[in-house]
C-alpha cells in the first residue's frame, strides 16, 4: 500500500480547508503519514490539497488549474475533475495513503510538472523514501513502555482516523504508537521574560566549616590502618545517647506509638511515628546538644517513656507551638549519628564489608556536609566499603565514614552480600560532565547568573 518509493514524502500545500479537516490532516501528517506527506509552501508543492466543501475553495482550485499540479480534493460529495483525486469525507488514513500513491503516480506520468517543481524547490534535497522496514523503525521507538513493535504487518501503520470506517478491516489499534512532532521551544526562538530571583543569603563559610567539623570530625585519611588507627577511627555506640535513641526508635515503630526520651537537665525529645517527626526541646545545632551526643552517657541519665494520651496531647501542643524544635524523624536520628560519630565508624560493623546504598536518605530535610550527594550516588550504584568509596571519589575519608555511620543507623544500606550488584552507568562523555558541573554551579550559587 505504501508503495511510492521513487521520491521522498509528497510535497503538498494546503489551500482552503475547514479547521476540523485541517486538524485531522495535520494529525496524520505528523504521525502515521509523516513519510507520505510533507507540508511546504505552495510554490514548492507538487500537489495541492483542497476542501471542496469550504466556501471559496472551488474558485481557489480553478485559479490554479493552469499550474498542472494534481489536486487532492476533500469532499462529502463525489468530485470528478481533471487532475484531481477525490477523497470522500470523513477522512481516513487509508484514503489519504491511497491518494498519496495515486498523486505520485500522476506526477511520474507528467514529468514536466515534476521537473518544474524540482527546479523551484532547489534548496532542499529530497530524501529517499525509507523502506517499509525502516518506516517501521521510525515509528517504533517507544520510550514509554508501550509495546515497541506493534505488529509486523504494514497495514497496522494505517490508523483509523474515524470510528465509523467500514471497509477498513484493520481494527482500530490505539496501541499503535503515533510519533508526533511536537512544538519544541528548544528549537524555536521565542521571547521570554527573565525572572529576578532574590539571592538567598548563604551561611558564612567559617560557620559552615565549623559545623562540618562537628558532624564529620577532623581526622586525616588512613591507609592500612594499624591497631592504634582503628582506636581513633572507631567508636562504641553503646556508650552514647545514640543507643538510647535507637532503642526509642525501635520501640516507637513496634508499638506504633509516640515515645518520649528524657534527657539530662529536664530536656526531652519526642518521637512521633504517626507523622514521621521528632520534637526536641534542645536545638540540635547547639553546643549543648552536640556535647550530649558526643560524650558517653551514664546509666539512668536517659530514660524512655510512652506518654499517656493526655500527656501526648499536651506534648504535641507544645511541639506545635515550637515549630523550630520539630523536624523529620530521620533527620533527627541522622544528626545524632553524625554528632556521635564525628567521622568515625561503629565498632559493631565490619568496616571492610562491601555494602551498597539501598535507599537514598531524604537529602532535602537532613543536615548536609561536603560531598554527600556524590557519596550517595556512587554507593547507590556500586558496592564497596567506605575506603573504596572515598578513594574512588578522591575525597577525605571522614565524610564517607560519617555518611556510612548515619545511613547505617537509618538502615539504608544493603548488607546482604547476595544482593549486591553494580548498577554503574556507562561513563558519560566529558562534555556532559562539563555541562553538569556548570549547571550545578549555577544552581548552587543561589540561582544567580
Amino acid at each position, binding site marked *: 500500500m505504501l508503495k511510492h518509493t521513487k521520491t521522498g514524502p509528497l510535497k503538498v500545500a494546503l489551500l482552503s480547508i475547514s479547521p476540523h479537516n485541517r486538524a485531522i490532516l495535520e494529525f496524520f501528517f505528523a504521525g502515521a503519514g509523516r513519510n507520505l506527506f510533507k507540508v511546504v509552501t505552495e510554490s514548492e508543492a507538487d500537489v495541492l490539497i483542497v476542501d471542496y466543501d469550504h466556501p471559496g475553495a472551488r474558485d481557489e482550485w480553478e485559479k490554479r488549474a493552469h499550474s498542472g499540479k494534481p489536486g487532492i480534493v476533500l469532499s462529502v460529495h463525489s468530485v470528478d475533475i481533471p487532475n484531481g483525486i477525490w477523497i470522500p469525507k470523513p477522512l481516513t488514513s487509508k484514503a489519504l495513503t491511497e491518494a498519496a500513491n495515486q498523486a505520485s503516480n500522476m506526477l511520474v506520468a507528467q514529468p514536466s510538472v515534476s521537473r518544474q517543481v524540482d527546479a523551484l524547490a532547489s534548496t532542499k534535497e529530497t530524501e529517499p523514501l525509507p523502506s517499509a522496514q525502516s518506516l517501521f523503525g521510525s515509528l517504533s521507538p517507544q520510550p514509554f513502555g508501550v509495546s515497541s513493535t506493534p505488529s509486523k504487518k504494514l497495514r497496522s501503520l494505517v490508523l483509523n482516523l474515524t470510528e465509523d470506517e467500514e471497509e477498513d478491516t484493520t481494527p482500530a489499534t490505539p496501541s499503535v504508537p503515533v510519533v508526533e512532532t511536537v512544538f519544541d521551544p528548544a528549537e524555536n526562538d521565542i521571547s521570554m521574560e527573565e*525572572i529576578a*530571583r532574590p539571592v538567598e543569603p548563604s551561611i558564612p563559610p567559617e560557620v559552615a566549616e565549623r559545623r562540618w567539623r562537628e558532624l564529620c570530625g577532623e581526622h586525616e585519611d588512613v591507609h592500612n590502618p594499624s591497631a592504634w588507627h582503628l582506636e581513633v577511627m572507631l567508636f562504641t555506640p553503646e556508650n552514647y545517647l545514640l543507643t538510647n535513641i535507637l532503642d526509642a526508635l525501635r520501640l516507637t515503630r513496634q508499638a506504633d506509638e509516640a515515645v518520649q526520651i528524657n534527657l539530662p537537665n529536664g530536656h526531652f525529645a519526642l518521637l512521633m511515628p504517626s507523622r514521621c517527626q521528632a520534637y526536641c526541646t534542645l536545638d540540635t545545632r547547639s553546643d549543648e546538644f552536640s556535647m550530649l551526643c558526643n560524650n558517653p552517657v551514664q546509666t539512668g541519665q536517659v530514660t524512655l517513656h510512652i506518654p499517656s494520651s493526655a500527656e501526648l496531647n499536651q506534648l504535641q501542643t507544645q511541639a506545635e507551638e515550637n515549630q523550630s524544635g520539630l523536624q523529620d524523624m530521620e533527620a533527627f536520628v541522622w544528626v545524632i549519628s553524625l554528632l556521635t560519630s564525628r567521622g568515625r565508624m561503629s565498632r559493631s560493623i565490619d568496616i571492610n564489608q562491601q555494602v551498597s546504598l539501598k*535507599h537514598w536518605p531524604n537529602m532535602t530535610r537532613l543536615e548536609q556536609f561536603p560531598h554527600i550527594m556524590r557519596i550517595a550516588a556512587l554507593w547507590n550504584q556500586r558496592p564497596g566499603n567506605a575506603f573504596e568509596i572515598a578513594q574512588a571519589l578522591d575525597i577525605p575519608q571522614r565524610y564517607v565514614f560519617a555518611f556510612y555511620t548515619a545511613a547505617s543507623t537509618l538502615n539504608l544500606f544493603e548488607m546482604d552480600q547476595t544482593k549486591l550488584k553494580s548498577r554503574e552507568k556507562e561513563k558519560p562523555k566529558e562534555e556532559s560532565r562539563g555541562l553538569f558541573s556548570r549547571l550545578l554551579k549555577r544552581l548552587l550559587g543561589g540561582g544567580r547568573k
Partner: protein
Amino acid sequence: MSIINRKIIFTGPVGAGKTTAIAAISDIKPITTDEYASDMTKSRKPQTTVAMDYGLIRLSENERVHLYGTPGQERFDFMWDILTKGGIGLILLLDNTRKDPQQDLRFYTNAFRDFIEKKQLVVGVTRMDMQRKPGLAEYRQWLEGLSLQSPVFEIDARSHKDVTMLVQALLFSLDPGVTH
C-alpha cells in the same frame, strides 16, 4: 557556534507542583507552549501543539538546559521527540495529599519506563507539609517493588533549594564524578 541543548523533564499528576518547580529554578518566567500555537501555524510545520510548561537555564552563550513540564495526559508518546534530543533525565513529582500516590508512582514510572532505564529518575514528594503520611519509607518500599532505586526526597516545589537538590541527585546519579 553550535548550541548545546539539554533537557530535564518534570512529570507527575495534576497539581503536584511541576509548574512551580520549573519556576523555582528557571531563568525565565515559565511559559505554556500552546500559547505559541499561532507562531507554529505560520511556520507551516506539521507539528502538534501540546500544552507543556517550559522553562530555561542559560549556562553560557551556547549551552542551555531546557525544563519541560508534561501536561496532565494519559499518554506521553509525543514527548519522545523532545526526550531523544538531549534528554538528561526525569523528575517525577508526586502529591502526598492525593488519594493514591502509590498508584501515581506506578503510572508515571510505567509511562516513562524506557526513558528511565536509559537515563535517570528522581522522585520528589510534595505537600508533605500538609499531609505527613505516607512517609518516605513507604515510597522507598514502593520504588523497590518496582525494581527502581531512584532517589526520593520530600520537597516543597516552591523551594529553590529543594528543587535544586532533586537536580543534583539527578546529575550525580548520572555521573558521581561531577565536581562543582
